[in-house]
């Protein structure tokens, strides 16, 4: 074993209770950070997953027709008239196949789905429900909002005259596979569809109001011949969505909104959570660093004589400094391993505490390899940084003085 490492390990071993304390304290600190981060990341991923479970990352629409026209009220005064488009008319995306090709060519876009979307009613016997009609191409829509894996029964293919509805709506209407229901658009166009599938997206609003039909059928119901109301987009990196939306707006002249804008409140909340998590981690890191540093300072004072003898017998000041830095690194390294295990164990324990009816955890935690790598790096760097002062001090000890102080 190398001399520096040999001496560093021996010094730590001689530290006894002191060593146990800094190892334990540092490991506990790392454990707290790992646990807290796993918990927060898990919570945030869960919230984002839920939000994006029934939402496109980016939605492209026709620009609003709403414009403001300035006019004169009197001398020096101006007003603005708001000219709105007729409430009933749906606004289609012009030349959407071309738009779709343009968008698909943008790097970072992984899927697109044309959607004809508008309000409507469902009638079955006496029951009448207001619903949200979605005209989609199933295999494309599945890549935006995965319906197929969420089907309770039936299939998601939408051959002519088929409709797929949410499980709450099916219950409200008392319908099942193969039953016929009549869909009516706001313009009064109406048609009969057979229920081909029932889904549960885990969101009551969606389960109660969504009715998925073929694009062509929706175009007829909503009086949008050949048109779509929006192009739904999935992107590679969800947090790049807004940047991509901006890019899409520039390239197409259409309006593109990312989920980040549509769920701004959620994002502000998540950011706040992340920064309080970071603050707590920073305080823990400071406490751990101070702990390591103070124990090492005490050890330098206790080992004055040993250091003096080593200096007198061929150990350079640089080597002495390295011996104490190594001790810091060992504490950090040990803390990163034990702390990661501790934090991961705590997180798993916490995850097991509460479960959803389907057996999935209520509070899923996120233990990514990146978390352990970061925690370990932080621990070793903190170990080294907090050993820096004590190591300098040890290296500066005057050997003659140290030997005299018997």
């Amino acid at each position: 074993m190398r001399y520096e490492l040999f001496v560093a390990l021996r010094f730590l071993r001689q530290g006894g209770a002191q060593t146990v304390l800094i190892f334990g304290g540092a490991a506990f600190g790392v454990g707290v950070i790992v646990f807290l981060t796993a918990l927060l990341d898990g919570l945030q991923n869960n919230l984002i997953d839920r939000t994006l479970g029934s939402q496109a990352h980016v939605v492209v629409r026709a620009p609003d027709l709403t414009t403001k026209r300035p006019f004169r009220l009197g001398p020096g005064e101006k007003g603005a008239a708001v000219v709105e488009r007729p409430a009933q008319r749906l606004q289609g995306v012009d030349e959407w196949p071309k738009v779709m090709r343009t968008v698909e060519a943008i790097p970072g876009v992984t899927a697109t789905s044309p959607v004809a979307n508008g309000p409507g009613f469902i009638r079955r016997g006496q029951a009448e429900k207001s619903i949200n009609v979605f005209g989609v191409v199933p295999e494309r829509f599945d890549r935006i909002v995965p319906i197929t894996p969420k089907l309770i029964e039936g299939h998601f293919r939408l051959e002519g005259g088929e409709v797929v509805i949410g499980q709450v709506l099916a219950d409200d209407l008392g319908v099942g596979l193969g039953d016929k229901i009549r869909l009516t658009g706001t313009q009064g166009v109406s048609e009969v569809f057979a229920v081909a599938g029932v889904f549960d997206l885990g969101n009551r609003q969606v389960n109660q109001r969504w009715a998925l039909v073929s694009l062509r059928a929706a175009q007829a119901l909503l009086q949008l011949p050949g048109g779509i109301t929006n192009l739904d987009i999935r992107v590679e990196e969800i947090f790049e969505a807004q940047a991509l939306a901006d890019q899409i707006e520039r390239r197409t002249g259409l309006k593109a909104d990312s989920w980040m804008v549509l769920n701004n409140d959620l994002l502000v909340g998540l950011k706040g959570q992340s920064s309080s998590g970071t603050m707590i981690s920073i305080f823990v890191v400071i406490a751990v660093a101070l702990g390591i540093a103070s124990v090492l300072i005490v050890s330098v004072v206790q080992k004055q004589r040993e250091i003096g003898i080593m200096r007198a017998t061929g150990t350079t000041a640089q080597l002495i400094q390295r011996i104490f830095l190594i001790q810091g690194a060992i504490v950090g390294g040990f803390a990163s391993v034990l702390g990661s295990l501790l934090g991961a164990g705590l997180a798993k324990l916490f995850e097991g505490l509460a479960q959803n009816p389907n057996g999935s955890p209520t509070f899923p935690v996120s233990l990514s390899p990146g978390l352990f790598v970061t925690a370990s790096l932080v621990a070793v760097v903190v170990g080294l940084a907090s050993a820096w002062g004590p190591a300098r001090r040890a290296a500066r000890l005057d050997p003659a003085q140290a030997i005299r102080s018997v």
Partner: protein
Amino acid sequence: MSEPILELRGITKNFGTEVVTEVLRGLDLRLDRGELAALMGPSGSGKSTLLNVLGLLDRPNSGELTILGQDTKSLDDAALTRLRGRALGFIFQFHHLIPGFNAWENVALPQAALAGRMMDEHQATARRMLEEVGLGDRLDHLPNQLSGGQQQRVAIARALVHHPALVLADEPTGNLDSHSADEIFELMRRFHRELQTTFLVVTHDSRLADRCDRIIELVDGRIVQDRRR
């Protein structure tokens, strides 16, 4: 013509900044290869201070110090440490072994520090040296498991394992009963004979000093007598 190991000219050493104590007041001295010199003098005369200066643990305030032909003034701390580790050996009154390390480790540590090598590469040499001083069966003993005389033997093994040109011993027998003191002194004499090592030994014991080739006497920071026999 004998080979000079150590030469000092006009060495002074002061302590303190406000109240200045002059401890060494202009010393000239030369030690040649193979000399066994005793350094005597009353307590407080500056013997330990002189040894620290010669041992490169302390820098003099003025004067020149040459070791193995190398002027030491221009050397930085790392170079001084290397020269010290290579050319010098120390034996202190309170043996100054490192408490947490056993006998062979105490002997091997300076070697490993100097060579920047693995500890176990020096284990064999350390063991051989400890056998030489009669501690072949105490290799794994910690200092506090050894008697005073045995500890001082380990210190001698540590000081001589790398065959230094000069060994500085500060009252190496001062803490021992006269029987152990004789043994330790004879051990040093043996290495002096066998390895042609130069020794400068601080002692109050004129009985031991009489067995040296040279007696240097320090009073109040000045060499007042330098006798060769």
